[in-house]
């Protein structure tokens, strides 16, 4: 295996895993929060928020990447702010790749979780209320456990998308080996030069293998949750 992929390629694999992992993990809490707001909230800016969440889906990825570059880049307002206040640099760092992947995957995650929340019977939440649970407690003890399958679905969609995201990432954080050259960027690099198809194909295989593994794991986990809920 070590021979099959070169060290730079292994680096890309590791980086992609890291990026997809963090992108998924970090977008879960806001994903759940936004999904809850959209599913249950009745505030004025609801439709605007909904539109905003979907933007990365609607825009060509390159445009999203460009907007990220303008906003979170070295000279971008948010970028400068993050750097000066929190010491977080996103531009041309793997952290920026995490942001790009998270943003691109966000609509998928939110939709999945939102659908699950909409399927939760509000009568159960009411019942929890009569037993003394405040709204946040109801959320944690009733809603959240019931939407776990949706959260899992959202996470897996997010992970898969993060593994495949290319356009926004390369536009935002470029294609620097070991730092921002994710699997898709590496594949692109190979496809841009004559005779690179074989190498690209190998990386595609790795990428597919990883994502399929994650997918399968999530399916098995979901099946187990369903079995437990059915009482077996």
């Amino acid at each position, binding site marked *: 295996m070590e021979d099959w992929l070169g060290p730079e390629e292994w680096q890309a694999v590791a980086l992609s895993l890291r990026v997809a992992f963090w992108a998924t993990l970090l977008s879960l809490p806001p994903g759940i929060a936004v999904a809850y707001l959209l599913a249950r909230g009745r505030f004025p800016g609801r439709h605007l928020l909904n539109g905003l969440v979907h933007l990365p889906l609607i825009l060509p990825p390159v445009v999203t990447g460009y907007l990220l570059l303008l906003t979170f880049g070295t000279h971008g307002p948010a970028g400068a702010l993050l750097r000066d206040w929190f010491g977080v640099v996103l531009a041309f760092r793997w952290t920026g790749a995490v942001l790009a992947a998270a943003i691109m995957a966000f609509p998928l995650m939110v939709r999945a979780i939102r659908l699950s929340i909409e399927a939760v019977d509000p009568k159960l939440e009411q019942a929890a*209320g009569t037993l*003394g649970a405040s709204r946040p*407690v109801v959320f944690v003890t*009733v809603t959240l*456990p019931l939407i776990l399958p949706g959260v899992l679905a959202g996470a897996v969609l997010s992970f898969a998308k993060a593994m495949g995201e290319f356009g926004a990432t390369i536009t935002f954080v470029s294609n620097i080996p070991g730092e921002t050259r994710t699997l898709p960027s590496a594949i692109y690099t190979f496809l841009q030069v004559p005779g690179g198809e074989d190498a690209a194909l190998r990386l595609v295989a790795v990428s597919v293998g990883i994502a399929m593994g994650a997918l399968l794991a999530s399916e098995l986990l979901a099946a187990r949750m369903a079995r437990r809920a059915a*009482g077996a």
Partner: protein
Amino acid sequence: MNDGVEIALRHTHGDFRLAVDMTAPRGVTALFGRSGAGKTTVVHAVAGLLRPDAGRIAVNGEVLTDTARRVFVPPHRRRLGYVFQEGRLFPHLSVRGNLLYARRVTGKGAAGGEFDRVVGMLGLGGLLARRPATLSGGEKQRVAIGRALLSAPRLLLMDEPLAALDDARKAEILPYLERLRDAADIPVIYVSHSVAEVARLATSVAVLSDGRLVRCGPVADVLSDPSAVRALGVREAGAILTGRVAEHHDDGLTSITVSAGQVILPRVDAPIGSAIRVRIAAQDVMLAREVPNQISALNILPVEVLALRGGGGPGVVVQLGSGTDRLLARITRRSADALALAPGMHCHALIKSMSVARWDVGQQAR
């Protein structure tokens, strides 16, 4: 009045209009009414699951809802136990998790001994590790009851809690509720279709019809009022005798002293001297002008005919004075004619002791 639950409601659901003003005093208030009369709507409003168009709800003087003053305490701060008509168990929690939910989220709730007692009474011991999806209809209902009981509520709302249960199970649960009522002294609003089920428990009765309150008052008054017979249903009419335990006999019977004499019932599990209430269904009372001999009925009370009320049908309801208590007897018009019954007449009421159902006997609510 500051004790109990004050309810004043105006609400519209589509074509349905609810307009109820009532007070459920301490003790158990039975809420009767036909399907669709508005019982669940009232209970929802008390629980805070419904914001009425207009109204005021107060428990022991504390205002929970007051549309005029824009007061609306959210359900989780109302500290009530609600047994829903449709279960509403948490599917992701085991039976144990459901039962202990209130304790988990509030840190309060019943202590360990109480848990074991409720589990034992409801026969849930073997089910604790199971998920609701695998329970039978009656098992689900029992878990729902247990969950509400274990939330240490200061007000208990029970919407037909025993409808899915067999008589034997009911007979186990009712004494528990009775003890709860007496020991915890919390108001209970109990929706039911069966007077027999709650006559034992109830201190008051409220009868709803088409969203309006048609009768409301102490249980003895409402049940012994012949005019309530129609509202409650013919089979359910009956009256309450109050008395004290006089003696426990060796053959498993217990004598009860009532104002007009003694009645004998199957063993009543209460110490001698304790006050109890006995429900006597109107249909279980026969009238005779002479005391018959050689008959299996053990209870024969002297009574005075107070009123006769007939409906369109072949029956009449006879209201009887028996000492300071009132009795109802439901007999055919033909018999009434044969006996020439008329107000003021003295005769004898024959009550089959065995027809006093076990659960119609209850310790009197304070």
